[in-house]
């Protein structure tokens, strides 16, 4: 039982509970879908731990989750760009098609035996660019937004921290997996991703709270 309480699972569980509390009465289905997504994240993480305790390879679980992760992030950026009336939103289908091609090619190359880290690396680069493009839209936007309490801004901040911060792990992925270097008894990759997960889910939790407060303010002013 103790094995299920890792930094990752606890962070994800807290973020899921915050999303459940803050977004349960959300009228916008897109925001509401974060609850469902975070539930999947938590279930995948605990299932991963379970498979690890059984000494089974859990890479296929994370491989399947990669598709859900890509779809969720892509839809998020699509929703965001559409709000800013940016034509970049139209590239969604193209990007998803490209992702599926790379993903399938890599999986068939390694015969479904390993995590498609190259696809994950490409996906990270795309989401970093997508985040930067969002910042550009914020800068160019004629309307002023209080960024400190702008939920979308904090969701993107979390994404940028997570995917940009994971670059070193992506570059050295092959080495890190095969060498299994563990300076503190935990693998380097795992340690880094613990920090990145904390950053990602802290930003997201804050974004959900901002969204909750905004919704409450707007409904009380009606």
């Amino acid at each position: 039982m103790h094995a299920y309480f890792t930094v990752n699972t606890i962070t994800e569980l807290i973020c899921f509970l915050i999303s459940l509390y803050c977004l349960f009465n959300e009228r916008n289905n897109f925001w509401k879908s974060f609850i469902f997504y975070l539930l999947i994240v938590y279930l995948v993480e605990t299932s991963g731990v379970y498979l690890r305790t059984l000494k089974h390879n859990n890479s296929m679980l994370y491989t399947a989750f990669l598709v859900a992760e890509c779809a969720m992030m892509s839809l998020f950026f699509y929703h965001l760009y559409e709000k800013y009336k940016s034509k970049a939103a139209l590239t969604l289908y193209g990007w998803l098609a490209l992702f599926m091609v790379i993903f399938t090619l890599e999986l068939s190359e390694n015969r479904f035996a390993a995590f498609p880290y190259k696809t994950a690396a490409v996906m990270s680069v795309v989401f970093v660019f997508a985040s930067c493009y969002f910042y550009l839209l914020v800068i160019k936007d004629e309307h002023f937004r209080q960024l400190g309490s702008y939920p979308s801004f904090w969701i993107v901040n979390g994404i940028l921290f997570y995917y940009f911060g994971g670059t070193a792990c992506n570059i050295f992925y092959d080495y890190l997996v095969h060498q299994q270097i563990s300076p503190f008894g935990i693998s380097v990759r795992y340690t880094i991703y613990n920090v990145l997960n904390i950053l990602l889910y802290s930003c997201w939790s804050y974004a959900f709270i901002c969204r909750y407060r905004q919704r409450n303010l707007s409904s009380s002013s009606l």
Partner: protein
Amino acid sequence: MQISSKELIFLIFIITFIFLLAPIFLITYITVYNKKKAKYLEEKEELRKVFELELLKSQIEVQERLMQNIADNLHDNIGQLLSLTSVTLSSISPESSQHEKIKTAGDLTIRAIRELRQLSKMMSAQEVIKKNLGHAIAVELDWLKKGTEFSIKFKDNTTHSNEEYADKELILFRLFQEILSNIIKHAQASVITIILDQVPGLLSLSVKDNGKGFAIEEKMKDGAGMGLHNISKRAMMMSGTLSIHSNPGSGTEILVSIPYL
């Protein structure tokens, strides 16, 4: 040279740390930029409010001037004509046929009607200004010609009118009235030349007189140039320019140009 595992771990941590610092800088930059944008938008809003206030002032001033003109006209022209008509009519005795007096009374009535029509035309200048500045200036000048001895030349070289700039045209019209009023009060001029010009992106109004002129700097220094300050302030508010050429004894030329598409 081979890199040890420890060094590699250290390297990976350093790279990750740097890659985490980069978003922090980026987010900080966006936040600072956003604050500057907020300040800029606030200033823009402030300017918009000032512009609206000045527009309102101009509207009131134009209306006040119009009311003054109406009052003057009623008192000096129409009132006099109707008094004369009344006197003429009362001097006619019912028994005698005095065709001459009846004809005079009729003529006076026709003149009074003509004056009333002119007055009504001037009142509609308020509406005219919203569509055509040149026409409004022409109506104002017609009025001036009637009651004074000035020789007035007006050239309207405008090619088109843009309803989006109606507010700016109203302020420009008010400036024109202010300049004209200054000439009548202080310039001792006999000839006034007005040119309304339009080039792509610009509308300019030039008012020139052959009056006594003045030293611009002195006028500004001794505070007597409040009218000039006002004209300058309003021209700048419309993102326009004002240039004054004047010297004692050699008349004055005032040129106001505003952006106009």
